[in-house]
């Protein structure tokens, strides 16, 4: 009788301990995976902040957020022409990667520009409206369209579909802030005598 009980007991102890260990491991795994997910998410968020949000799709993704997700999973970060050199630098620093030049397969750097429709040539086909990723174009079928300049991201996506080529990308220089001047004082007053 005794050996049988001891056998049961051993089995019980081994079984329960196995169960406990598995449960513990599962808990740990769950926590680890959650952590990884939050890290991933915050990384995506930070990458997305660094991207210029033009939603132009030049990187091959439909929008900046999908590209940010893809970067976080290991895609190259040098496929964003509208972001310019600053974005590449920022992303390289964020991902702890060496700085690479822009991938020429995805376009080239240029200044921020805004789409402008030559309104007397527009035939009202609504193709550009459908192409605009941020709904910055206003107009109806067979009626003139126009771009709301303050909403335009300069993504270029409306230029290609236009059947009459009436959309221009116009270079929009940032409002020129006053030029900073180098200091000059009255030479007689300066504490450092000119030699």
């Amino acid at each position, binding site marked *: 009788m005794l050996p049988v009980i001891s056998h049961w007991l051993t089995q019980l102890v081994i079984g329960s301990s196995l169960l406990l260990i598995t449960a513990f491991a599962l808990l740990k795994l769950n926590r680890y995976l959650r952590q990884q997910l939050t890290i991933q998410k915050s990384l995506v968020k930070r990458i997305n902040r660094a991207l210029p*949000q033009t939603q132009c799709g030049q990187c091959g993704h439909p929008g900046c957020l999908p590209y940010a997700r893809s970067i976080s999973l290991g895609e190259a970060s040098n496929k964003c022409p509208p972001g310019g050199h600053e974005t590449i630098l920022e992303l390289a620093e964020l991902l702890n990667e060496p700085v690479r030049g822009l991938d020429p397969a995805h376009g080239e750097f240029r200044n921020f520009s805004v789409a402008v429709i030559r309104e007397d040539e527009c035939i009202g086909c609504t193709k550009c409206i459908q192409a605009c990723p941020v709904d910055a174009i206003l107009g109806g079928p067979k009626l003139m369209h126009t771009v709301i300049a303050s909403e335009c991201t300069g993504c270029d996506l409306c230029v290609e579909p236009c059947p*009459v080529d009436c959309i221009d990308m116009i270079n929009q220089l940032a409002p020129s802030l006053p030029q*900073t001047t180098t*200091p000059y*004082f*009255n030479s007689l007053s300066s504490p450092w005598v000119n030699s």
Partner: protein
Amino acid sequence: MSALRQLASKFFGSDTVFARRTVGGIQPLPFKEDSLRSRIMSTPIPQQLTIPIGAADGGEITLLVDIGEQVSKYQKLAVISIFTEGVSDVPVHAPTSGVITSIENSIVADHSQQQQLCINLAADGHDEALQLEPQSNYSLLSRVNIASLIRDAGVIGMGGAGFPAADKLRLCGESAIEFLIINAAECEPYITADEALLRERAEKVVVGAEILKQASAARRCIIAIEDTKPDAIDALKQALKSEMNLDQTCELVLIPSKYPAGSERQLIKCVTGIEIATGQHPTENGIVMYNVGTAYAVYEAIVEGKPCVSRFTTLCGQELKTPKNFEVLIGTTADFLFELCGIETSNKQKSILGGSLMGSELGSDKAAICKTTNCLIAASADEFQAPQAEQACIRCGFCADVCPSKLLPQQLLAFSKTADTTQLLEHGLFDCIECGACDYVCPSHIPLVSTYKESKKLIATRRQDLEHGSYWQQRFQFRQYRVKKEKDQAVSRKVAVPAKPTLAAGPAVKQQNKKTDFISKEQASLDIAAAVARVKARRDEKNQ
């Protein structure tokens, strides 16, 4: 110390109050004697006036006159609406009578050095003025009344910032004001406009200060002036002793002559000992400050009913034969004033706007005087030399000693060079008042202030980019949502059998369609053919 105080009271009188809480600062040679040698002169009316109506930081302009219109002196020409901290309207008045010839962009003697919208007025020389409405007894006016009168007169801060005076009064209404400080500390070399004004018209300034005290409901009114201006101090003391000031509403406080003592926060610290935190407005701490020139403009606006059409401007520099202070009509061009002082144009090296430390080069001598132009310098070749070559920072720490904002200029420089924005913000870059004291003492001639200005610009553009980015992202997400919703709706519509339009509704619907379809089919096909032909022609051109 007491001996010093006795000595000081011997010079300044026993009732004189001193405030000596300064941080940093420098004492450059003042170069103020030349322009103080003569009295203030009112300029003759120039033939052509260029009156700036553009707001420096955007804003909306409402024109009240048209080209070709005959206007009288003091007539309202335009209203500038500025949208910072609530809407504020600043009217612009005609400085003299005449005909408006054009309204166009031109250069203004303003530190932004940008083209602004200006009204060109051809003066007819008659100087026909509108009837003014002087308020003989200002003490009967309510706070709101005074503020609206000041607003109607178009008075803005004459010290340089150009903040509408009435708006400061509105801010005063939001918190209890302990101190009203009248800023007579004109610390920058060359500028003497306020000192000259006090020397000659101190009584009017004191009355203006009293009006401001009444309007801001301040408990004490303090006129702060540097102890190196004996004539102005005497005039002020006389004015304060006069009948107008029987109940001793205003007090005089002398401060040490140390640049930049006249800066708002530095002067508040010196006079009251209170330090204003970053991002706070002095009124939140119960302090409000006005420039002497503003107090004078307020006197004119209330007691004489005169709108703000002139200001006091110093003209100096070695190239001028008779440097002096002018009461200039707004819109006078710089070269007109230079000629009044007798200038040898062949010899002139450059014109500088503002004093020698914070000034910038004047873009063109045709620049028009605006309400914030306090000084113009016609410099000779050896008076202002080109900056010396920049050398490496040797970490001497002189810049930190003189910084009036207690910043660490060399650290800021290092972070500016690496564009480390987080560190720059942590080290208080936006507390830098760009006074140029660090530039002045730097033995390596590093252009520190211009580096900080660049960094400030960089941070501003980065913030703007981030703002744009998040807005665009929001728009993009909304569009995706909208497209998905429309698709779903289309699917559900297909599934549901569309109800046949009833007979009564049918023709109406058709008619509606016809109404929107106002281009006939032939016309449309012609248009499309023409457009296609245009494209072809353009493509051919490109190919060629």
